[in-house]
Structure formats: structure tokens, C-alpha cells
């Protein structure tokens, strides 16, 4: 199988596996007073310092969570308290579902947030929490986060940044971005699933927890930290892939698809090097994903709900792509992608594009009583 679905989950890095294997050997709970507790606590704090240094925050500003979704939910819950909430139209469901009543900031056809609209919204009204992701999971579009952060700070607003897809692929530095919080997920960086973090700016030293529990993480997230997973997270946080190589392979895959009739969604924007969103006009996204899967190529489309059905992409809809929103697949190259994998993708895409296109909407039935 050729795995081109890194944005769903990156393949586990050997460094993460080794760090987790070592951490499994350590018995204890970091809250315990005894020597075993201290040993575990040391591993935990070593991991925290490494992650803090990597992303430009103080170690006490790292809150470990169960993943990106919890980090986003915690940010909206804590930073959004008594504030009106503005979310970008292309945010991940982790943010959208946490703020169902939020005002929705539009994007242009490339998927870039409309900062002029944001400026207007921030100029009047009560203090706001703005949620703007650094890089989009479906298109790879990179948002002007530093600019948005400056806008927010000028108007007394706070900015939460979902950097789940950006981390490990482009620079993510809290101080440089100027935002108030950042959500991370380890398995999108080649670490294990089930762990992530919320990074906070120094002025947010205390926040209201979602889960109070035993007061772990300085009262910001209850529950015994998942130490082996956190060790795996820390082990990958400094690793990167050769982005120029990924971009060259991505561009090659993209060019091949375009030759067979594909349209690149968000092509004009500054994008992650590993991601492309390819619409094949007239062919349902789920049919494309199935055809490629049966041909040994793993890609995805839109957001799959727990039923497994492929839904029309809210990201592409927000970009004004209309019918194409239901006809696009996401190809995302993992850190260990090979040239052969792209050759295989090109061949499979050509075979798929040449297949008869299932007309899934045949002529309407004769209405009753006709």
C-alpha cells in the first residue's frame, strides 16, 4: 500500500517508538512523592521543556492534553470565556464544534482568511477570541497568523491557533506568531496518537480547565499524564522532513493529476509542502477514494464522520468551490514518502481518471401521480 494520507496521521517515527519503549520501562505516577514518582516526573518535565523550547513558550506554558481536539476545545473553553468568538470558515471541526455559535470569518478562493473583514469586526463590539488555524488540513493553505495576531492584540482580542498540521512542517513559534495559544497533536508529527498540547502565552498563566480532576498540569488539565505517549511526542518535536523534497514530489503528483483533468483547490495560496487538494470535476470524492484504495493508494476526502461516509468538504465550500467541494481528494505526503510512491500514485490516478465516471445522479424519477 502507498500511504499518502499523512494529514490524517503521520507514520510513527522510530525516535518516537524508541522513546516510548524506554518510557514503558519506568513505573510510577508523576504526582507521587517517592523515588519512583520523581523518576517519572523527571521524564515528564524533560519532555515538557523540550516541547516548550521547540515552540517558543516557557515550560510552564505547556499543557498536555489527549490530542489536538482537546487542546482546541480547552482553548475555546478557557480563552473564550466571556468573549465573543470568531472562527475562520475553514477551521477544523475540533474548533467549529467547540464554538457552535461563533461568528464565521470568510476566506477567499485560495482559502486565505479575510483579515479586512476581521479588522472591521474587531473594531467594534465586545472583546473577542479569534480562532485561526496556521495550516489547513485539507488544502495545506497557510494563514497570515502573525498579521491576525497583531490585529487581535491591537483590539484587545485573543488569538487561538490550531497548528496541528503546521507543526513539524513549517516554523511554529508562539512568540514569533504573537498568538495567545497554540494547539498541537503528536501523531501529526510522527509521534503517537492520544497526546497533544495546548501552548499558552505567558499572560495566560491560569486558565479554567475542561477537566479539573486531581489538579494535574497546574490545575489546567486533570488526569495522570500519558507518560509514554508524551515521551514519544517530545522525541519527534524537533524532527522535520526535507520540505523542498516533499514540495517537489507533491508538485509532481499534482502536475500528473492536472494532466488528467484535476483542479488544484487552493493552488494560489502559500501552502504546506506535503499537501494538495485535487478535484476531479464530475466524479464524487468517495468514488475516487475507493478507486484509489482498491488500486493500493491511501488518500482521503473531506472529513469522514464516524459512519465512515465521506461528507462534502466545508473547507472547499467556504472557498466558494461549489460542486467541486464534493469532488476533491486530499493527497498528503508523509515524512518518509518515496519517489516510487509518487510514481504509483501517478499511474493509479491515470487509471482512475480513465474509468467510466459513475453517474450517481441518474435522471429524476417520474413524480407520483404523474
Amino acid at each position, binding site marked *: 500500500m502507498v500511504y499518502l494520507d499523512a494529514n490524517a496521521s503521520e507514520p510513527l517515527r522510530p525516535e518516537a517508538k524508541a522513546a516510548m519503549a524506554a518510557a514503558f520501562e519506568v513505573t510510577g505516577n508523576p504526582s507521587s512523592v517517592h523515588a519512583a514518582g520523581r523518576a517519572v516526573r523527571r521524564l515528564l518535565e524533560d519532555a515538557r521543556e523540550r516541547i516548550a523550547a521547540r515552540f517558543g513558550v516557557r515550560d510552564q506554558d505547556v499543557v498536555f492534553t489527549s490530542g489536538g481536539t482537546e487542546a482546541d476545545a480547552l482553548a475555546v473553553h478557557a480563552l473564550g470565556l466571556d468573549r465573543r468568538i470568531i472562527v475562520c470558515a475553514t477551521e477544523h471541526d475540533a474548533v467549529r464544534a467547540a464554538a457552535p455559535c461563533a461568528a464565521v470569518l470568510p476566506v477567499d478562493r485560495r482559502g486565505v482568511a479575510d483579515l479586512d473583514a476581521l479588522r472591521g469586526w474587531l473594531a467594534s463590539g465586545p472583546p473577542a477570541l479569534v480562532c485561526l488555524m496556521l495550516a489547513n488540513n485539507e488544502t495545506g493553505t497557510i494563514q497570515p497568523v502573525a498579521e491576525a495576531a497583531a490585529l487581535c492584540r491591537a483590539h484587545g482580542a485573543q488569538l487561538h491557533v490550531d497548528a496541528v498540521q503546521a507543526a513539524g512542517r513549517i516554523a511554529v513559534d508562539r512568540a514569533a506568531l504573537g498568538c495567545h495559544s497554540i494547539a498541537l497533536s503528536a501523531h501529526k508529527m510522527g509521534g503517537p496518537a492520544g497526546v497533544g498540547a495546548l501552548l499558552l502565552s505567558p499572560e495566560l498563566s491560569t486558565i479554567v480547565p475542561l477537566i479539573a480532576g486531581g489538579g494535574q498540569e497546574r490545575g489546567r488539565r486533570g488526569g495522570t499524564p500519558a507518560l509514554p505517549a508524551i515521551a514519544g511526542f517530545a522525541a519527534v518535536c524537533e524532527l522535520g522532513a526535507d520540505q523542498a523534497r516533499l514540495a517537489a514530489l507533491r508538485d509532481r503528483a499534482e502536475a500528473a493529476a492536472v494532466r488528467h483533468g484535476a483542479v488544484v483547490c487552493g493552488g494560489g495560496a502559500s501552502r504546506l509542502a506535503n499537501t494538495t487538494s485535487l478535484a476531479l470535476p464530475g466524479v464524487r470524492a468517495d468514488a475516487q477514494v475507493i478507486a484509489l484504495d*482498491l488500486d493500493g493508494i491511501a488518500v482521503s476526502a473531506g472529513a469522514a464522520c464516524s459512519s465512515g*461516509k465521506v461528507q462534502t468538504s466545508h473547507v472547499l465550500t467556504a472557498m466558494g468551490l461549489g460542486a467541486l467541494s464534493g469532488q476533491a481528494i486530499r493527497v498528503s505526503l508523509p515524512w518518509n514518502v518515496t519517489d516510487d510512491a509518487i510514481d504509483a500514485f501517478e499511474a493509479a490516478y491515470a487509471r482512475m481518471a480513465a474509468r467510466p465516471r459513475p453517474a450517481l445522479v441518474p435522471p429524476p424519477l417520474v413524480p407520483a*401521480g404523474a
Partner: protein
Amino acid sequence: MSGGVDSSVAAGLLHEQGHEVIGVTLQLYDHGAATGRKGACCAGQDIHDARRVADRLGIAHYVIDAEERFARAVIADFADSYAAGETPVPCIRCNQSVKFADLTALAAGLGAERLATGHYVRRVDGPDGAELHRAVDPERDQSWFLFATTREQLERCLFPLGGMPDKRTVRLEAARLGLAVAEKPDSQDICFVPSGSYAEVVGRLRPDALEPGDIVTRDGAVVGRHDGVARFTVGQSKRLGAAAMAGGERQMVVATEPGTRRVVVGPRRVSTFEVRLREVNWLVSPAAGPVRCAVRLRARDMPRPAVVEARDDGAVVLLDEPALPAPGQACVFYDGDRVLGGGFITRPAT
């Protein structure tokens, strides 16, 4: 693969025979919304069951979102049909659209040679191509529901359960194949009306079909009131109140008139020899003249001797013995076990 025992066994048997089997489950409606349970997942237990069967067999499995298409082609048609004074058969509409039309197209698009389902019918390869025959088990036969399958679609179809002697054998096969759904109860009634109140579903889409009106005799005399034409079907004697008896004779619905919102009642002897059909599908080359055959006017109806004649806009059926056909139901033509074709019963011209 619905997640039920039939389609699971169909997949299991083909897999066992060495075919490359690809499982597809249709997400037809939001299960959480349909059952009215807040926060419930849009996918019911059935999708989970189908996926676990595919896991067990070691075959690929996909969930296709057919909600929009199903809402239009099946649920809206269901409500519109009631509002038009008919008694629809949503399972036929579903087979006609999301199942056999869309899935044969999907199969072709994926390079699959056949579409297999767990329906109880037999495909027999005759001199002129694939023929549709009744299942071996008369209790389970579903040929009436599949009359609208086109000849092109039928050529692409396989029905591995058509030859099963009975349901017990199918369940034993499921157990032999190690499928957890072996003892799963059969699905009941209409899938998108899990609460059992179809009138509620109709009323949500077509409130006019649940507006009260008069119960009248064929002469127009008002003999009672009713609570919506959608609650009545031709041949029904329930829900008529005092209008259920007249002159010591049991009365039944002989027509519903959506325009005037009237339900017309009469004695059982009000029946007809002639039935007109629309949207006729022929599974044989239609003869130039009348065809003698047996017809079934309802899903569980007995075969009735009749003569069918194709017309440009459908067909006319002349029954040997009069009957009380319900508009909107199917009239399916049989030569013994073989399905010759069928169509939808129209409302008589008034």
C-alpha cells in the same frame, strides 16, 4: 451490505468462492435524527455491523453517502405519493434509484464486474440474457420489489441467496462463516420510519396529507370525518369509525381524493377488472399484442390470472376476476416463476 444477515451471507459466500468482494454500505438517512435521539450518531448500528462483517471476511468495505439522493428519490417521493392519494412502495423506489441504478454505476466505475445483493430472487441466464425469477423460498421471495430493475442492470447483478430453501439455512450459513450477525433479527417495515409512524414522516414533508377531511360514499354523501388522506389506503377498513358499516355491510376505502381531501368508502364488491399502469419496466421484449400471465397487485398478494397489454405510456391489465388495486402499488407480471415486467398502478381517471 446493510449490516443484516442476508447481505452478509451473500458477501461471505462469494468471498468463499474466491471472488474479490468489495463491501458497500449505503448511508441512507441520519439515523440519529430518524430515531429522534439527541446526540445519537448519524450512523446506526447496522453500518457498524456491516463493517465488522467485512473485517471478519477480510474484504474492503466502504460507506457511501446517499442521504441526499435517498431523501429526494425515496422519502420525498413517499410523502408526495401519499399526498397524491396513492399508497407508495418506498422499497421499490429505493431499489430503482440508490440501489440498482447508482450501485451498478458505481460498480462499473470501480471496474467491478458484478453487483451482488442479498435479495431473495434468482437470476437465470436465458437465451436472451439475464432473467429475473422468484426465489426458491416463497416466504422470502422479493421479486415483486425488484420488478423495476432494468435488463441492463440485471445483466450486472448476482443474487446468491435466491436458491436458499429458507431463512434458517441462511442463518446457519452465517454461523458457519463465523458472522456475528447470524442471529440478528430481520429488519421490519420501512427503514427510515424506525418509530413505525409513517404518517408522522409524511406529515413533516407534506402537511397537507394530514389535514382532516370528509369520509364520503361514492355518491358523495358525507358519512364521517378523517384525520388525513395519508392515513388511508385502498382496501383499508380501519380508522373509519362509524363509516365502517353501512346497511349491515362492512365498508372499506375505495379511493382517496387529495384535491378535495375526501376518503371515499364503499362495500368490498366495488372492484375493477381494468388496471392502468405507468412507469412500466419490461424484462422481456414486450409483445405487440396482449400477454396472458399472472399478476401480483401487492407484495404478499396471490397471483391473479390476467392479460397485459403494453401501451406507449405504460400498460393496461385486464384481470380475469375483479380486484381492488391500490394506486401507487406495483402490479408485477409473472410467467410461472419468471418476472416478465411490471408497473405502478395509477389512480383511475375520474
